[in-house]
Structures are given as C-alpha cells and as structure tokens.
C-alpha cells in the first residue's frame, strides 16, 4: 500500500492531526471563498490571505448523484459505482462549500441539519497512492 496523498495540494491541510479546508479571506471586505484564490469577487480587491475553515456547518441543500459520472474527469470507482450524496454545507459566518456527503440515503438528509468535515479515500492513483478527498457527514449529535 502506498501513502495517502490529497486529491489536490492546497485544498486542505495534509498531512495533519486536525486537517482543515483551506479557503481565502479578503483583507478588505472579509469575504471568504473556497478553494483559496487571489482576487476578491465581492469587492474586486486583490488583497487576500489563506484561512483554515471551520469543520462543522449546516446542510444548505443536497442531491444524490444517481448515475456514474463520465470518466474523465471522474476518478472514483466506476466498476462498483454506488450513488453518492452531494451538498452545500454552510460554514457559519464563512462560506457555503460544495462537497461529497458520506451518505446517499435521502431519508437521512435534511436541509439545516448539522454536518461535520471528514476525509476519506476516493481512489488509488497510478503510483499506488491512496488519494484522499474531503466530505461531510451528518453530525453524531443533531
């Protein structure tokens, strides 16, 4: 087994004891974005800094990806494809982040429910590394 590598450098802190999504914050107007970028779409300044985002948020909306995505670009397992949840998680005071969800059960998903950041393996790359992505799961205590 190879090592665990992030799906993209700079998307989240990795490796880390307590990995976080890396967004950016505008030094002029405070707007928060994900992933981090230069330039602020809210006030048009180019003065931004990196910001590690919160780990808990609420489910703003969701769907379930019911059919296998085209590959490329999709890199996940298509041979044993199982539907997966996708949603936007509103991180309070920061930004709404789009992510895979750890459940694809429509009855387990409710707009407004608390969600926690998770990291999980998505596929194994050509070098045998386990590629890690971020996702959100329903919080244990609702």
């Amino acid at each position, binding site marked *: 087994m190879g090592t665990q590598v992030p799906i993209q450098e700079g998307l989240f802190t990795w490796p880390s004891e307590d990995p976080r999504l890396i967004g950016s914050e505008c030094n002029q107007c405070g707007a928060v*974005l994900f992933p981090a970028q230069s330039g602020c779409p809210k006030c048009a300044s180019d003065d931004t800094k990196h910001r590690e985002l919160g780990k808990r948020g609420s489910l703003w909306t*969701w769907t379930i990806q019911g059919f296998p*995505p085209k590959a490329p670009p999709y890199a996940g397992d298509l041979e044993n494809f199982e539907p997966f949840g996708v949603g936007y998680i509103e991180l309070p005071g920061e930004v709404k982040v789009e992510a895979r969800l750890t459940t694809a059960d429509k009855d387990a998903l409710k707009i407004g429910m608390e969600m926690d950041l998770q990291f999980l393996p998505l596929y194994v790359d050509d070098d045998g590394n386990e590629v890690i992505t971020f996702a959100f799961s329903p919080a244990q205590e609702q």
Partner: protein
Amino acid sequence: MSTPEVAIVGIGMHPFGRTPERSGQEQGVYAVRKALADAGIEWKDVQFAFGGSAAAGAADTMVSKLGLTGLQFINVANGCATGGSALFSAYNTIASGAYDLGIAIGYDKHERGAFRVNTKAGGLGDWYGKNGLALTTQFFGMKINRYMQQHDISHSSLAKVSAKAFRNAEHNENAWRRQPIPEEQILESDMLSYPLTKFMFCSPAEGGVALLLARADKAHKYTDTPIYLNAAAVRSRRWGSFEVMSPWIAIDDGVGPTVDASKAAFEIAGMGPEDIDLAQLQDTEAGAEIMHLAENGFCEHGEQERMMQQGETEIGGRFPVNTDGGCLANGEPVGASGLRQVYENVLQLRGQAGKRQVPNDPKVAYTHVYGAPGISGVTILSR
C-alpha cells in the same frame, strides 16, 4: 412601450434531436438557407453574421458552403447563452446603425449522455471533476430541492412540467421527443439527481437555428409579418448568486443573473411581466421552468404550485410556457438553444404555430436562456 429599432424578418431551423448524416455545421447551414428562403433573400444580401456552437466548430467556416461573399462574420462562444449572445450582438449591430441586415446563427452537435465538463476551461481545478462534482445535473437537483422545501413545490408539479413539454412537442415537427409520457411514468423513471428523474431532464442534442434581423423601418421589404425585437439583454452572475459548477457559494444570499437580465430587458422594452402573452423559459430540467417563472417576474415564489396543478402554463392556459416543448422535448444543442426559443415565439406571434398555436392572438412574447457559469439572456418580441 419604447419604439423597436430591430425586426426579425426571416427564421430557419434544422430539426433538433439526432441527425447522424449531418455535421453540426451542416445543420447550421440548413437553418441559414431556410431563413433566407423565409425572407425571400439571398446569402449575398446578408451584410454581417454572428454565429456560434459550443461543440461543433467555428461558425464562420460555414461561409465555404454558403458563399464567400466577404461579409463580416464574428464567432460567438458564450456557453449556454451562445445563441442568445449572437442575437444580442446582431441586435446591437443594427440598432447602432452600422448595418441594415444581418443574421444570428447557432448550432451544435453533442455526444450522448450528460455533458462532459472541461474543468480547466471552466476555471476549476482538476480535483473538482475527479471528485465527482463536475456535473451540471447536480446543481439543478440541489437548486430545486432547496426551492421545493422553501416554497412548498410538490414532486407532482415537477412531473406536470415534463408531461406538458412532451405533449406540446407532439405538435412540433422540429422537436426531438414527441411522444407524450404520463406523469406516473415520469415520476417513476430513474432518479438521476434527487429530486429529478430521467424524464425531468433535457439531454444534450443536435440542431441549428438562424434568424435574419433588419432595421425595423426596412422590415417590410422582406416580410409582411415582421416581428419586432423590443429588447435583448444578457447578464452574468453577481455576489451571492447560486450557480452551476460552483465549488463555493457566498455566505450572503443574492439574486441570480436571470433576475438581472429580466429586469434589464423589461426596462429596455418599457414593459412589465403583465404585458407578456407567452414565454419560453429555460427548462434544463422541470424544476428550472418552475423557478424561472418567478425569477423572471411572472409570479411570486411558491405560486407555481397552484399554476402547475391548475394547468395555467398549458397552451390554452392563462400564461402558456414552452409551447414548442422546451429543452425537455427538444434537447439542448447549446449553441442553438436560445435561438430556438426566439424561433418559436416568432411562429406564435405570426400565428403560424399550427396545432400548438396559442389562442387569442398573442402580441408580446418572452424568451429566457440560462447556463454555465451563471449567465442569462432574455428577449422580448412583439408584432
């Protein structure tokens, strides 16, 4: 109402759907020849062209088939608003006084299945596609899912939108899917992206549309039934809007480009939603038609539930929507889709829509196109 400066004097269309024996460009050429015949003119009379396709090559190459007349031909590439942008550009070229007669052309030919998204071209990292997030279908599922909860829209109303589309298309020889489908079958078909099933989504397709535009004061040279273009407006997204292919949405809620384009078009035309007799609204999926009714100002949020259940948007209803079957029944050749809507409205305003003709002599019609990465185009036509 402001005095229109531009008129549509000829229209042409290549049927939508799948035509294996013709390239996308050939379907565009076919549409141009139909439009020329409709106006009774020749290609050499056309002074300028704006044309585009998303997946079927550069439109200006079609002069090698239509004739090398040396005209000004500008390619347009603006995602799902390509056709709308070609029309907008042609409209402004005439309104500016630069030329008297020109053409807007859109055509396309896509591979089967959901759109394969080029994340790089979309300004997104590779991780987004690898992760399984680069699907336009997810956005539509998520937008209507939230909207249904906020505004009490039922699954039954989604099914009614699709059922209407296929029923309207039955009487449209240019449409792709012309077989009526019962609501139960729509609801029970494969769940592609909750709450949207297979028959609630349009599919990428093929087809072409061409529209000849002239100065309004010269329109009668070409046709007895000029249709005036009172407004054409295109808008992109602002802070706080929720758009397709977004790894993030602003924490602040805002309105989308449809609201902005609609307001701009009504202002240019000097009209309001109450002046419109029928509309073609972007229906990438059934929920989009419902949400776009409100975003374009034709009802309050939530009112759609009653409108759908009571059939108010049927051809014989109070406010007919997507009379030609919309994207749901025509499919979406991206470059041509916005022009198809205008083509349908010209037929309706001329009274030439046959079995799907809106009754009571409609005088003003509206089109709305929406697409990635958050653009909308609106036109208002009158006779």
